[in-house]
């Protein structure tokens, strides 16, 4: 309990000392609220088109203006939060499982397990990541599930490497030796001793890669993969508004792009802040 209380105190100290992290945390709460409550609080139906109100600039009625079909952009941007956040969280959770577990196994067992995992990670790293993600989605089929899978795969090396080096350090630690001597099997040691100890580090990794996951997924849907229109999603909405940028209707692409940017910005700052809390040595 006292360690919990001191961790909390430390977290409050970091938030207080670092207004940027506090700001990011506030933004994060807003994004989560938009994802949960979004569809029930927006003023208009995000799919309802109304051609008599097409291409209107932002006004009191339509805060972010309307698009070429007269749909309310504000409603669409808010409603899209849930899908974008879901894709990012799902892919990060997936890579957390895949990369975290195989990295821990590689670091703990060494030998051929280590060789195989690291060989896979190196092969993935030999591709420009976004290009590999495109190839995966093209091959497996154009769907949201495959966007999630592709985003998870391209992040795999990061997680596997971090988990491997952390597990490797702890392999010979005293408490692991003790657990081994008291008759625990390898699987049990990995799951109950090593994994819980490196979870904070992996969680930092998760929030650092959330921003990248959002960008990756939005980039894929920008080029026409994954989510399909008319579903509100930030990447597609920017793509739909792109053609209007050259004729001056800036708001169609601007607001979804801004939402995207704020979300990524928020997770990047939050990741840095979390890292300061978990691992103050790596502070830059």
């Amino acid at each position, binding site marked *: 309990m006292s360690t919990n209380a001191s961790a909390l105190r430390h977290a409050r100290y970091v938030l207080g000392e670092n207004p940027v992290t506090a700001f990011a945390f506030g933004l994060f709460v807003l994004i989560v609220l938009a994802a949960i409550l979004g569809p029930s609080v927006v003023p208009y139906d995000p799919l309802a088109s109304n051609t008599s109100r097409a291409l209107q600039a932002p006004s009191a009625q339509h805060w972010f203006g309307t698009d070429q079909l007269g749909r309310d952009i504000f409603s669409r941007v808010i409603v899209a939060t849930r899908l974008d956040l879901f894709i990012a969280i799902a892919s990060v959770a997936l890579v957390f499982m895949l990369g975290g577990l195989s990295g821990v196994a590689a670091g703990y067992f060494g030998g051929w397990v280590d060789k195989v995992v690291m*060989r896979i990670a*190196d*092969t993935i790293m*030999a*591709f*420009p*990541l*976004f*290009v*590999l993600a*495109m*190839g*995966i989605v*093209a*091959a*497996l*089929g*154009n769907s949201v599930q495959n966007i999630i899978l592709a985003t998870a795969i391209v992040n795999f090396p990061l997680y596997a490497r971090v988990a491997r080096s952390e597990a490797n350090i702890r392999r010979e630690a005293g408490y692991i030796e003790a657990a081994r001597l008291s008759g625990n099997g390898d699987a049990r040691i990995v799951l109950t001793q090593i994994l819980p100890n490196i979870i904070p580090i992996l969680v930092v990794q998760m929030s650092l890669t959330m*921003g990248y996951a959002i*960008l990756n997924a*939005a*980039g894929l849907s*920008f*080029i*026409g*993969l994954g989510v399909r229109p008319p579903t509100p999603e930030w*990447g597609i909405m*920017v*793509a739909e*508004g*792109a053609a209007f*940028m*050259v*004729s*001056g209707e*800036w708001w169609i*692409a*601007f607001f979804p*792009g801004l939402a*995207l*940017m704020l979300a*990524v*910005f928020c997770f*990047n*700052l939050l990741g840095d802040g979390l890292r300061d809390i978990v691992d103050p040595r790596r502070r*830059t």
Partner: protein
Amino acid sequence: MFSLIFNRLMLAIPSLIGVVIVTFLLTRALPGDPAAYFAGPAATEQAIAEIRAKLGTDKPLIVQFGRYVSDLARGELGNSLTTGQSVAKEIATRLPASAELTLIGLMLVVILAVPMGILAATRPGSWIDHVTRIVSTAGVSLPVFFTGLLLVYVFYYRLGLSPSPVGRLDVFLSAPPHITGFYLIDAALARDAEVFVAALKQLILPALTLAIFALAPIARMTRASMLAVLSADFVRTARASGLSSSKVIVTYAFRNAVLPVITTLGMVLSFLLGANVLVEKVFAWPGIGSFAVEALIASDYAPVQGFVLTMAALYVALNLAIDIAYGLIDPRVRISS
């Protein structure tokens, strides 16, 4: 030195083998039977079997892989389903457009980010330090297609400074005679100032978009590594010996600080090559990225596969070049190898 290059070449080979295996597996993972796709919906069972035999998809996986590798060795990437054109030829004609864009983008990044990092490190806590931090954090959070569109809106629609964001050259001008495929170089070689300026005007916004995206890692790394070097003993000694501050910073500190920056270039290239696809889409740039995107929409896999393979091969080659450059700059790497 030669042994360093040789060793590094040997290290690149497993990566290339991995790349070839992955691109092969990705085609085999395609949903549905390509033979049935080629044969069309009205085909009989027998016709499909014949096409399957022609495509070789009835053979064991390992035989198919052997065929794939021998095709690759002959520079054969298959044909596009929609246009029937050879993918290898199409990629070869489009590659210079992408390469020119990426290289100019890379040059812009280095020109902008390295001085920013140095200035931020030499004046920590000053306004330039804060600006560097804000710009680099914002730059990495900006989706690259969004930055591109904002630049188009401001510089094309609002200010009218840049030409219409379509393609490599104004439609009224004809391309310079093909020598390298890089319009800037070709136009300069042909002494055609008009085409050179026009090509530069088309290039500057997409290249800047790429540069903004890749600014953060280089600026941050330059700053961090300059800070570390500036507090080293040899810099203090140089200062104490009365050398001018610019000499200390440029010749003593920067030459040592540049090494980690070069390592980061590898990661930055991964970003740039990926971002290239999005930038090409925004600026209707006729490179290999937009070629792949068009094929993706049409579910035409051969061009996508050729594209992924080309990009990965480029990336492996560029990383190799970076490592060799590292060895050239840092004598310690040469000795330890």
